[in-house]
């Protein structure tokens, strides 16, 4: 693949990687970080870690 195909493909890879890293930090790492640390301000309240994927899943299913 050349040109824009390559750019789109690698863009998707980077997006998927970013989702993985952000979500892993949110679900797995954050509970072990003390509540006062700065890292917590970069993330939404933990309930959204469950709500957002469920909403996204429902939206995806309605498009099938």
């Amino acid at each position: 693949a050349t040109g824009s195909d390559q750019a789109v493909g690698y863009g998707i890879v980077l997006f998927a990687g970013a989702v993985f890293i952000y979500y892993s930090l949110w679900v797995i790492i954050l509970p072990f970080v003390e509540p006062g640390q700065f890292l917590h301000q970069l993330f939404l309240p933990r309930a959204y870690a469950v709500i957002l994927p469920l909403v996204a899943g429902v939206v995806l299913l309605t498009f099938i």
Partner: protein
Amino acid sequence: MHCFSSGCQMATKLVQWLTLFTLFSSVWLSLVLKLIPVELDPRIMDVLWPLPIYLLVVFGSYSLATIGYRVATFNDCDEAAESLKQCFNKSYWSPLFSIRRTIQS
């Protein structure tokens, strides 16, 4: 391998996945619903209850990354495509192809 009295067969992918799924969900349910009298650190419980959704998200992002990678590294064979087009232009049927091209444009 799962074996009946008549003989042994290799388990299919489906059976393997169902076994893994049943194992994981029984362990997860018994821990989250506190059916096992085990004292767990509240932070571990905090990681445990969204775990199925987390695994789904990880699977989804892995699939997405694989698709993107396959798109980016797709073997286009540009020279082969060009030489194939030249074959069409030089062939006996090339008048038909040029008619089709003018109709399309």
